[in-house]
């Protein structure tokens, strides 16, 4: 469910333009008046970032949700940014195609918002992230200038690649208005293999062997703590659970299940498996929704805070251990092959949330060559830039320089992203 926008953002008003020129005009006026603009998609990721302090205008993309062009035989689609992800998926499914990115709350989330927040899930191991699919983009910068980059062909090196730059920029450089996506054929078969493990050490050992598995997993998922489902493959309460997702033709999936079970037997690991459609889809869905604060299932409660770490995949069990030391009841999901660890806290960690993050977990993530950020917290009182986004990156000065070029008056989603006060 979307967070109540009125409680999250200090909005005076919300406008819903139906065309890019209208949207650009609104931003130009806001730039002139130095008025803050909060771009709004499906409002599913409003918890991400520092709390908004400046009052301003909500700029909803809900009125720009058309499919502009869908040449299915070219495997591309051009859509307005306000299109709901589920509607996009339905349209693609009718042609047996898909965008293989797991986006939580798809019936609510918009494609523009998913791009701006760099949404991802289990399938990123095989399919990459949304930046790998955006081949053309239109947007309005903080001056109110509409611009485009890329195009509608799958290979194109003309000009700077703003398609990548705007992925994960949280609306702070420009308001995305339209995108062209590269899409893929939908695989006909999907299955999960899973096993229960006595410890994180055992999980780490097994993960190492998967690096050179003869199979080609779509997802490699490691779970600890309260299970994210009451039944089926995710219901286990073993100290560590490993799930491997396979997709492809029926013959490819069947061969891989057989192969992984054979490899498991050689290592003394007992994999179970299922290709039953409803069960398989439920697992994909629960894993995709894991990062949603009040997602169903996990520990039967909404989370107090959600944390995301991105580290070397060989280091995830180290990181999980350091989280468990201060938060033994945390529910943890790792996209293990990609080194992405999502933590759902339902109790305050020992010493308090901010201290646990800054003094213990962020250093642990750095030691694992990565980062740790706070995606959502019920109590936003003690949030600082460092608690939410971690220590400034080495390229912080460049990031700010880019921000200032795109949004010289600092009106786009101000004060919430990595730039500090901008």
């Amino acid at each position, binding site marked *: 469910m979307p967070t109540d926008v009125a409680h999250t953002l200090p909005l005076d008003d919300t406008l819903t333009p139906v065309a890019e020129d209208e949207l650009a005009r609104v931003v130009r006026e806001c730039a002139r008046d130095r008025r803050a603009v909060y771009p709004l998609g499906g409002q599913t990721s409003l918890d991400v970032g520092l709390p908004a302090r400046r009052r301003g205008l909500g700029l909803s993309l809900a009125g720009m949700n058309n499919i502009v062009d869908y040449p299915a035989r070219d495997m591309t689609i051009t859509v307005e940014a306000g299109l709901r992800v589920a509607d996009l998926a339905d349209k693609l499914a009718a042609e047996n195609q898909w965008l293989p990115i797991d986006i939580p709350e798809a019936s609510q989330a918009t494609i523009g918002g998913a791009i701006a927040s760099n949404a991802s899930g289990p399938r990123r191991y095989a399919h990459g992230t949304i930046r790998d699919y955006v081949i053309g983009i239109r947007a309005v910068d903080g001056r109110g200038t509409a611009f485009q980059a890329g195009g509608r062909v799958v290979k194109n090196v003309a*000009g700077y690649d703003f398609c990548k730059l705007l992925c994960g920029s949280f609306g702070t450089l420009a308001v995305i208005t339209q995108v062209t996506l590269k899409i893929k054929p939908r695989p006909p078969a999907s299955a999960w293999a899973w096993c229960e493990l006595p410890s994180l050490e055992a999980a780490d050992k097994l993960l190492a062997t998967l690096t050179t598995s003869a199979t080609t997993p779509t997802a490699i998922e490691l779970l600890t703590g309260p299970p994210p489902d009451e039944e089926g493959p995710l219901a286990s309460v073993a100290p560590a659970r490993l799930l491997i997702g396979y997709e492809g033709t029926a013959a490819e999936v069947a061969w891989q299940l057989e192969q992984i079970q054979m490899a498991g037997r050689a290592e003394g690991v007992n994999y179970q498996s299922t290709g039953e459609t409803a069960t398989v889809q439920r697992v994909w869905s629960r894993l995709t929704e894991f990062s949603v604060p009040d997602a169903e299932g996990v520990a039967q409660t909404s989370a107090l805070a959600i944390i995301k770490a991105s580290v070397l995949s*060989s280091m995830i069990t180290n990181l999980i251990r350091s989280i468990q030391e201060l938060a033994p009841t945390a529910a943890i999901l790792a996209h293990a092959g990609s080194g992405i660890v999502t933590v759902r806290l339902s109790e305050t960690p020992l010493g308090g949330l901010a201290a646990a993050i800054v003094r213990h977990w962020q250093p642990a993530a750095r030691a694992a060559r990565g980062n740790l950020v706070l995606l959502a917290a019920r109590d936003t009182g003690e949030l600082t830039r460092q608690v939410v986004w971690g220590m400034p990156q080495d390229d912080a000065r460049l990031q700010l320089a880019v921000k200032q070029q795109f949004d010289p008056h600092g009106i786009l989603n101000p004060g919430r992203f990595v730039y500090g006060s901008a």
Partner: protein
Amino acid sequence: MIAQRLPSLIEDLRRAVGSDGVLANRADLLVYECDGFVIEKSSPDVVVFPRSTADVAAVVRLANEYDVPCLPRGAGTSLAGGCLPVGGGIVVALTRMKRILEIDLRNRYALVEPGVVNVWLTQALKGTGFHYAPDPSSQGACTIGGNLATNSGGPHTLKYGVTVNHVLGLEAVLADGSIVEIGGPAEDAPGLDLTGVLVGSEGTLAIATKIWVRLTRDPQGYRTMLGVFESVDDATTSISEIIAAGIVPAALEMMDQGILVALEEAFQFGFPLDAQAILLIEVDGLEAGLDEQRDRIAEICQRCHAREVRQAVDAAERQKLWKCRKQAFGAVGRLSPSYCTQDGVVPRTKLPHMLRRIYEIGGKHGVRIVNVFHAGDGNLHPIVLFDERNPDEIRRVLAASGEILDECIACGGSVTGEHGIGVEKLEFMRKLFTPDDLAVMERLRHAFNPVGRLSPHKMLPTAGACGIEQRAPGRRAAL
């Protein structure tokens, strides 16, 4: 630059990187006047060969001190003039920074210096079960730093993606000589994806000194096929049908009769010389799925009137086929003294139309055009043959090339899929982008490179591109 200060700059550069790392005499500089795009030539004042990040930073600081342009260069295989030292200044040749610093299979990455030749990395990975996926046809010579600058593609990028899909992060020297780390071996660093915009920035934003690249698992098996067609139309229709059927081949390349003749002379593969077009199609992945994909592709080709679809019998034959394809441009020397190639892209469904237009345009201007290209991506490489001693022919070649690119734009495509804008296609940027689009790009460059120190006059026509006038097309064919 002001001639009086040159000796002092050279002296300072020698102090910074060592005497053996500086070239400054006229004969030595000749090599660095251009890259694979030989129409325009401009001599640098000096070429330096740094061995470390600190060396590169010192060189850039000197470029600022002496107020001269500074241009990074890899192997110089760029086809669009990205390495043309417009306005002279310092060429920073990164070919001595050629160490593979780290290979981490568990975490699927390698850390390399920019001068590492593309194929060296894959050679270093042999036997590990991993490889580096982007495989430009020049991979035996081109560097990973250069690949990063141009966001290089290659035949296998149809399935595996281009360079940007395989770069995790980099260490770079900025225009002011400072050193910065952007991204890194772990995914999803918080903040803006500057790595994403640095890839393909043609040296205009920063000089990469270390690059983290993603490694890819080797496929379990391959099926490599040749589809033989009696008309180009049937071949291009097959391409469109294969993509539309939801098959993603690892590679899907087309060669027309013109190029086949040259290839056959050069490599004696046994290509049927009376065929009008050949498709080189490769699927890879799990053995369990390959025969099914092969059969579906063969069925589609046959439905599109292929005369024959044959499969490479073994690994040796597969390798020979790929050697022919990757060295195709080299074989063009058998057809004419000079050639120029374009790099336009169209939606895959427009390929039949586009190929017909290419031959029509060639006929209209009285120039011969042969084709070998990344068909599955819709990325054309029409090769226009000419003799550069014939000025009238050169005019016609230029006119034909321009008309082909205009047609790509009219089809909803782009003027460059993988070679870059460089200096060659600067004027086409105004046809692809509005003044507002270009102004936003200009501002991005300003954030990184405010005074235009790095690679001036490249990529953006608004960047004071003064007087790069195309006088003659293309490059001498390799002999």
